[in-house]
């Protein structure tokens, strides 16, 4: 708001922490305006000599006062200085301060003393600082600072100029109607005030603040059982001209120190009418534990208003507290909560709580107001049936509560409704997951049927763990379809399961009772039973199980309509006479749902019937040939149809008929005296129901001399009837079977490299001479003209036999044969009379061309590969091959002979001699490196020691043969280079020492190694038994790891001939090297030493072949 500075004034004072303000009643209605005016007036009269200006910094909520000099005794207004910023906030601050002081009773001292500073703002000039606010958009409340000379009751003319001019005569502040968007010129002209001049302001809606009225809480209530606060307030929407969105901010404070525990916004809409709103809040702490305060403020978001929108002031706080009670209590009491959730439990007490525990676990205490404490339980586990105990201990007592942590009911599973009798429906279900809640907290179930509106409840006052969950619902007449809803509910929630069922299709009959059996005749009985239920409108399907002794049970289904009496009857026929049956029955309904359980069994013996046939009979003549003995077999029970009491035997010829009656059942033969006539004999069995059909046998004989063995006969028996003859039976047979007379003809149908297909013909019946049993097929390798043709039998190892018992088979394929091979095949037939003659054939299989090709290709391929590999290797090793086998110029440095000569001749006297003892050398081989190929010169030396090898251990020092030489001195080829030392007289001496010493061991080590530097050491790298040698051997092993021709090296004596040991010891044989080393050339070649530039031409070994070229 822009304003020109004309005379205006405003008043405000602060007095030693007390405050006073002259306010309009509408701005701070709670302030005792009259009192403040009076007090301010009183104070103002005395204060004005202080001479300091007071400033108010409302934004910071501070009062800062400076001395100022007033130019008027009564020049303060009771109008609030309408700062452009926060008049309401200022008002609230003043109000709060003043109220607090008023409550304490120290407000408004009678008069301030001179020591109590008093400050008064006073600004001289014209009305200025015009400021407009609105709380309902219907009236703008404008005020300005009065000119300094304005007194109480001053009037102003306020004119608003835009298209037209409207003027109002107002007092200190003005309520003007809202202006449309745009700038308006406002003129404030003080009336009746001398020295004041009018002010002009430019007013726009954008400069107006929308500050809603402070909301008022209509009601605050609490539900302590659920720890819920219910807040109710009026939005006073009737004062707003149009729809607006409102944001409410609600704060919940706890304890006496008013800790904010909840600050939440809540949006509604103003609809032009006063509307009461509700807001609920559930506390995490029982409301009984501490006092709770609630305050509310609002913010109106009117989209059509372009000015500042500000929050209203907070409403007066309302609180909820437990009525004072001296008794100690623990809250919540017996709370049921969801397992896994958090819970706060508190103890309201006047005594000091020492500890708190849940179950056996102690918890830290949270101190509330006074001695009240609380504990926080997080993620509580599901409780046992009796709940979880929470106990607070004071000095001489305990207080507790029980928490029941559980789960809401699971959806009822496997809900099934059926009926046993169409009178009552039984619904069963599985409750699912246990809720961990029992007794009055357990789940209650209600079964509701929607069509009829009826329901039944499930009460579990005292249940056992095994009790089924089931409810019974009475079937309603004329209702077949039921729509069931099973509702499960406990204190933590509810679920439901539904089922639509046509009850006539869900009949599960009870067990049939009173099963009875009654005879009708020998093959039929009547079954009757009782099946409780109202089945008159449906069909029953019953199943009868018929068990007969030693027989599989039989099931028969019968369908019948339900009867009101529930007694049912059916006939079971097709039974056997005189048989024990066991019956039982079960029933279902049509359509099928479930079978009932089987009824009890009922046993029954059917009555007798006449035997179904006569006994089997045969006859024979007695040994004297005078009597004919008739035998018969007792009838089996299924043919006797009862107990056989007796038999009747009768015989008749053309002339007479006689009979033997009442032969008891225990007798099964009868002897008849007959002549040579033909008779027909008949036997009849009798039981209590009657006689069986007669069994008849005729007597007729054919002489035996009419038949020959090996001939097939066809016997046909004809019965004589009135109309003629009738064939009764026909059989084929031999009096005696013989072996086949001929062999079957067979041919080779097909031949391949590994198989033969053979086909043969049938043997004619007359040549067969018996019933054909099969064929024997032999085959083996064989030529036509070999002796193996004859006597082909299965016992031979190379003969294979196939026994063909399927006489319809006429072909045979022989597989797995060799190609281009002659086979001998034999076939013969056999009958019950023996083996028939054989027929043979020779067949040559075809050649196997694939094998031949493979046999040629493989060797060729191998040869080519070897050639290629050899060529590659030769190419890669061409340098080495060249140097090894045909160098251009031999390297003289590689000459071992020269090295030997040099070392010996240049003064190393210790290496001049080689001593051999006791192994007698007979060959000396000198290997030189002057030529590419090692030159071997074996020299045969006849040693005197060698002639007496058994005396080696006794050899005297003077008997040692000492050979000193500088090669080349001996160039004689050994006659037997491979002979062993003990068995022959040859030894090969090689200048090992001279070529080894400079290469294998550094010179610096020679002084410390008396053995190593003394003479010939062919096995330098082998283990040596002496202590000194052990030390050297380790060094040598590191440097000369290579060839080791002798395994048992411990038996060797490696002492040099001129070593101290060799000379001083009389008992030890003085020798050098291995006794077998004489024939080894390879190890005498100096080891390849990287330090030696001379090793390249030192000899040849096979391993060199795989090494890289020397130059590489």
């Amino acid at each position: 708001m822009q304003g020109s500075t004309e005379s205006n004034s405003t008043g405000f004072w602060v007095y030693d922490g007390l405050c006073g303000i002259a306010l309009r009643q509408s701005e701070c209605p709670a302030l005792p305006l009259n009192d403040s005016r009076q007090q301010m007036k009183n104070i103002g009269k005395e204060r004005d000599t202080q001479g300091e200006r007071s400033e108010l910094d409302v934004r910071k909520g501070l009062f800062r006062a400076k001395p100022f000099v007033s130019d008027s005794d009564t020049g303060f207004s009771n109008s609030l200085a309408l700062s452009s910023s926060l008049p309401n906030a200022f008002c609230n601050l003043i109000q709060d301060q003043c109220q607090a002081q008023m409550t304490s009773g120290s407000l408004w001292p009678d008069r301030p003393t001179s020591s109590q500073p008093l400050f008064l703002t006073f600004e001289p000039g014209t009305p200025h600082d015009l400021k407009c606010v609105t709380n309902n958009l219907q009236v703008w409340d404008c005020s300005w600072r009065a000119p300094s000379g304005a007194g109480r009751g001053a009037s102003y003319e306020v004119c608003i100029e835009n298209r037209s001019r409207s003027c109002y005569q107002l007092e200190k502040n003005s309520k003007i109607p809202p202006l449309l968007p745009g700038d308006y010129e406002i003129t404030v002209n003080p009336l009746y005030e001398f020295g004041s001049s009018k002010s002009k302001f430019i007013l726009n809606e954008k400069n107006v603040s929308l500050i809603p009225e402070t909301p008022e809480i209509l009601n605050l209530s609490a539900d302590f059982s659920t720890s819920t606060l219910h807040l109710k307030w009026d939005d006073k929407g009737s004062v707003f001209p149009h729809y607006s969105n409102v944001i409410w901010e609600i704060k919940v404070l706890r304890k006496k120190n008013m800790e904010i525990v909840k600050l939440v916004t809540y949006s509604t809409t103003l609809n032009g009418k006063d509307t009461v709103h509700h807001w609920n809040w559930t506390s995490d702490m029982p409301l009984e534990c501490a006092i709770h305060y609630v305050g509310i403020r609002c913010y109106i978001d009117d989209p059509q208003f372009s000015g500042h929108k500000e929050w209203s002031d907070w409403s007066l706080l309302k609180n909820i507290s437990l009525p004072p009670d001296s008794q100690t209590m623990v809250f919540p009491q017996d709370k049921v909560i969801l397992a896994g959730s958090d819970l706060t439990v508190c103890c309201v007490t006047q005594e000091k709580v020492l500890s708190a525990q849940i179950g056996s676990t102690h918890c830290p205490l949270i101190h509330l107001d006074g001695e009240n404490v609380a504990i926080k339980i997080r993620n509580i586990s599901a409780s046992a049936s009796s709940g979880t105990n929470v106990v607070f201990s004071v000095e001489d007592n305990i207080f507790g509560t029980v928490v029941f942590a559980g789960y809401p009911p699971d959806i009822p599973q496997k809900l099934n409704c059926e009926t046993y009798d169409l009178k009552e429906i039984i619904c069963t279900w599985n409750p699912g997951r246990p809720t961990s809640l029992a007794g009055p907290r357990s789940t209650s179930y209600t079964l509701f049927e929607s069509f009829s509106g009826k329901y039944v409840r499930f009460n579990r006052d005292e249940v056992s763990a095994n009790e089924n969950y089931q409810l019974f619902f009475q079937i309603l007449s004329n209702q077949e379809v039921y729509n069931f809803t099973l509702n499960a509910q406990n204190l933590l929630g509810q679920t439901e399961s539904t089922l639509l069922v046509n009850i006539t299709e869900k009949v599960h009959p009870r067990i049939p009772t009173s099963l009875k059996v009654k005879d009708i005749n020998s093959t039929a009985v009547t079954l009757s039973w009782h099946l409780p239920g109202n089945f008159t409108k449906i069909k029953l399907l019953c199943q009868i199980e018929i068990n007969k002794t030693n027989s599989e049970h039989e099931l028969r289904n019968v369908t019948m309509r339900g009867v009101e009496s529930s007694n049912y009857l059916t006939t079971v026929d097709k039974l056997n006479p005189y048989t024990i049956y066991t019956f039982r029955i079960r029933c279902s309904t049509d359509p099928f749902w479930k079978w009932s359980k089987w009824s009890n069994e009922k046993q029954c013996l059917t009555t007798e019937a006449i035997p179904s046939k006569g006994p089997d009979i045969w006859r024979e003549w007695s040994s004297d040939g005078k009597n004919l003995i008739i035998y018969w077999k007792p009838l089996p029970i299924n043919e006797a149809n009862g107990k056989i009491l007796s038999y009747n035997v009768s015989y008749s010829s053309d002339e007479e008929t006689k009979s033997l009656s009442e032969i008891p059942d225990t007798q099964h033969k009868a002897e008849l005296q007959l002549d040579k006539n033909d008779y027909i004999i008949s036997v009849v069995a009798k039981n209590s129901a009657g006689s069986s059909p007669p069994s008849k046998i005729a007597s007729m004989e054919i002489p035996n001399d009419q038949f020959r063995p090996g001939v097939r006969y066809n016997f046909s028996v004809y019965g004589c009837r009135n109309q003629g003859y009738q064939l009764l039976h026909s059989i084929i047979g031999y009096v005696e079977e013989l072996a086949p007379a001929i062999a079957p003809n067979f041919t080779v149908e097909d031949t391949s490299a590994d198989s033969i297909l053979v086909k043969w013909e049938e043997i004619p019946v007359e040549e067969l001479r018996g019933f054909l049993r099969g064929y024997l097929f032999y085959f083996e390798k064989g030529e036509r003209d070999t002796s193996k043709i004859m006597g082909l039998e299965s016992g031979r190892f190379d003969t294979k036999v196939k026994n063909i018992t399927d006489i319809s088979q006429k072909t045979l394929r022989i597989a797995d044969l060799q190609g281009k091979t002659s086979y001998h095949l034999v076939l013969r037939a056999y009958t019950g009379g023996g083996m028939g003659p054989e027929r043979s054939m020779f067949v040559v299989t075809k050649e196997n061309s694939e094998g031949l090709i493979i046999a040629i290709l493989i060797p060729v391929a191998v040869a080519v590969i070897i050639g290629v590999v050899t060529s590659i290797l030769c190419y890669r090793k061409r340098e080495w091959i060249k140097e090894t086998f045909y160098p251009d110029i031999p390297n003289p440095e590689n000459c071992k002979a020269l090295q030997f000569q040099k070392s010996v001749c240049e003064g190393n006297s210790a290496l001049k001699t080689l001593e051999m003892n006791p192994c007698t050398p007979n060959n000396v081989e000198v290997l030189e490196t002057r030529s590419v190929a090692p030159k071997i010169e074996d020299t045969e030396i006849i040693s005197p020691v060698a002639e007496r090898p058994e005396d080696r251990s006794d050899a005297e020092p003077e008997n040692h043969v000492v050979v000193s030489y500088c090669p080349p001195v001996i160039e004689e080829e050994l006659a037997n280079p491979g002979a062993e030392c003990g068995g022959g007289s040859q030894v090969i001496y090689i200048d090992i020492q001279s070529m080894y010493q400079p290469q294998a061991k550094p010179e610096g080590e020679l002084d410390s190694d008396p053995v190593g530097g003394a003479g010939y050491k062919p096995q330098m790298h082998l283990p040596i038994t002496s202590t000194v040698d052990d030390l050297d051997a380790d060094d040598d092993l590191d440097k000369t790891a290579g060839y080791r021709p002798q395994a048992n090296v411990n038996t060797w004596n490696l002492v040099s001939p001129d070593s101290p040991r060799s000379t001083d010891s009389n008992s030890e044989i003085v020798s050098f090297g291995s006794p077998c080393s004489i024939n080894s050339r390879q190890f005498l070649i100096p080891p390849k030493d990287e330090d030696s530039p001379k090793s390249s031409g030192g000899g040849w070994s096979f391993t060199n072949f795989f090494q890289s070229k020397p130059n590489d």
Partner: protein
Amino acid sequence: MSRREGSLEDPQADSSASPLPHLEAKIQQTHSLARLLTKYAEQLLQEYVQHQGDPFGLPGFSPPRLPVADLSDPAPGHAGLPVPERLRLDAAALAALPPLLDVVRRLQGELNPLALRLLGRLEDAARQVRALGAAVEAVLAALGAESRGPRPEPAAAAVAAATASAGVFPAKVLGFRVCGLYLEWVSRTEADLGQLAPGGPA
């Protein structure tokens, strides 16, 4: 006092009328019953705390011995009283116990409906303690020391209503207290009858 003691000795004085063997047998029988019930009471208390959850049954858990309607702990000087007087106090306590055990049985039926053994023991205990009380009364009658006439009906219903409204925890504590009192009084009765039983210290 002398009147009571005299009544105790009267049966001995009239032994020629031979009520003595009968009295001894009665005392012996009642003593055996009390001993049996002491054992049962120990089992009941153990079973009870098992079903209440921690800290019931934990070592050191001892809720205050608050007075229970119609029943209190045996007085400290109980042992110093004459035997008939002790038996009268025993009989009075035993008579007060059954309704309290019934209340506990009812509360536990809601709290532990599946604890069938506990419920059975509570039910048995009420019946058995009633029988023991009757037996003690009979012994008193045989001794010539009649009990103090008809007692007012125990305020078991009031106890049940009070505990139910106070919450589950007080109900558990009440049950704990009643089971403990049951054990104490049958044990005390056993000891008091032991004073009279043949071979006893009496």
